[in-house]
């Protein structure tokens, strides 16, 4: 089976590194960015199976990146990793109440748990 391709965007270098390591260990192919602007300018539609986006980021936050990417690539699956309750709540309430709660991964999360969640999201329709 071809390996799944994932894009990780988080402004914390350590967390990007961590996520990339964990997913690569599980056989994923991972592109990682610490800057949402370059992540967007480099973005190629129909290239990824899943985007994992941090929410609270400078320059362009995860919501904005999600919105812009969706314009280019409506089919791609997106999930969010967040450490900020307030950001998460505002986002869900105001803009994306249709998004399933399952698409939000709360930090901190153990590595195995993260892989499980991501596989679940990838398997969902």
């Amino acid at each position, binding site marked *: 089976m071809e390996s799944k391709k994932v894009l990780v965007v988080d402004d914390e270098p*350590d967390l990007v590194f961590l996520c990339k390591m964990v997913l690569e*260990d599980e056989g994923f192919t991972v592109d990682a960015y610490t800057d949402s602007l370059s992540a967007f300018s480099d973005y190629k539609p129909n290239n990824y199976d899943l985007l994992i986006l941090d929410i609270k980021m400078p320059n362009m936050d995860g919501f904005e990146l999600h919105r812009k990417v969706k314009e280019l690539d409506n089919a791609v699956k997106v999930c969010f990793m967040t450490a*900020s309750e*307030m950001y998460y709540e505002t986002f869900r309430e105001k803009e994306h109440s249709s998004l399933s709660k399952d698409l939000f991964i709360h*930090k901190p999360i153990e*590595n195995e748990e993260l892989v499980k969640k991501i596989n679940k999201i990838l398997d969902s329709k």
Partner: protein
Amino acid sequence: MSGIECTSKVQIQVSANAKNAIHIYGDSKSSSIIIQTESIKKIFLECVKRGIKYKYITEITKDNIPYCKEVLKIIRPGELRHLDGVKGNFAVTESEYLATSTLYDAQPLQEVVYSNAKQVVQQNECLFETLWDKSITAEQRIKEIEEGLESDVIEIIRNSSRAKKLYLNLVNNAKKEVMIIFPTVNAFIRQDKMGIIKSLRKVSMESNVIIRIMMPIESFSQNGLDSMSYADHHQQKEIIDYDIRSIICPEGIDNIEIRNIDRMSEAKATILIVDRNQSFVMELKDDTKDTFDEAIGLSTYSNSISGVLSYVAIFESLWIETKLYEKLMVHDSMQKAFINIAAHELRTPAQAILGFSLLLKKHPEIKDKLVDGIYKNASRLQKLINNILDVTTIESQSLHLNKEKFDLNYAISDLVGEYRHQIKKANSRIELIYDNNSQIFVESDKERIIQVISNLLDNAIKFTKDGGEISISCEADIKDDFTKHVVVSVRDSGSGINSEIFPRLFTKFATKSYQGTGLGLFISKNIVEEHGGRIWAKNNEDGNKGSTVAFSLPLKINSPAEDQKYTVKNIVGS
């Protein structure tokens, strides 16, 4: 008796016959007739001259005060008293009685009733004394009228256009103070449209009237009226919650204060209190209506002091309550901000520590990198925990200093050395400049002062790009024997301080960055101030970007000889 000639004759006769006293009971017109009719005035003057003592009861009103004052002068040492609702006129002496029913301005009497029958005279004298006992002195009455304490008026107004007129009139004639409670946002909008707010602004600017308004501000955006047309009324695109304050008092007006009351669901009346001596309560009939005329029900005007002061008391206690409530809300939102920021800042390093520890087992080949990462994130956590504890200490006012005498220069040099090492280790090319050799002794909490300088350096590094420079200076600032300070400043070539953050730079959670809690400068300020110093910040003016944050500490100098040592200037930057 009738006929002009006859009546004036009898008046003169009665006066002339009086030996000791003349008692007069006259309606509100009587005083003006005495003063304006020369012949009558003359009779009075002559009698007083003869030693006749007058007792005079009349109704003193706003309109006849000047005449009553004149009468008071003329009849002295006789007395003038006031009684409400005096009707008819009569005079009694020891032996005679004279009465008439109607008096016309400065017109001689057409008809009088006269008697010198002992019984009639005694009977009327008895009546007079009874009335005299019920009356109050003219002086008291005049004072009451002049101080606006004129007899209490409580009026119920059913006609809404009259209510509107009275409402505007009351506001426009306010001399010192206006208090208003608007029960609903709609009530406010309707009354603003009819010009109340304009009038309030006018009296506040022109007569320096102090205005206090209480209304539900927070529900402004959910009001039932067409808020777009209202926005149009104020030439604004949109009316949002907090614009209400700028609508009522644009910049430059500082004697209008507005507070929010949000538990007004039961309140159904606009309450206006003017100068603490008049109240106007407008009952709300239908809050959904567009105009004041349609929405208003009964209105009650009162200048009864006890009634008005009761409204004042209610207003004042609500006013205090709103202040407490506002404080509580600020506190609440601060707590929320704290939880949110702290949560993000706690979870991020926790995620790294957790993940890296688990990776260690699988990837021994990158052990060093992982351990470094764990250490770095654990330090970040530790720093946050210390900051949170410091804030708690500061807020519970239990920040204690362990003061000791130490060389600030040496301490800074030491710290700079550490930071240079860190910068190098992080492969960053930020230049840290500190060049100072003279000793500067301070008596401070060394650990705390180092904490402050570290905070300033951390901030400077955070906002300075690779290749930029940060310079530290430490200078003694000695003006005279009483003002001796050492000033430590940290200047960077970073992005400068965000103008949004600037006004609240030293308060809690002042951060625009995506890393950090915004607690550092709050803590630093408190440490510096606890030492008796000051802390300040500015964006660099001299073309270079970046900012300078500096703080002062009081300097202890023992002898003038030592002074010299401290004034050595440091070479800053290069």
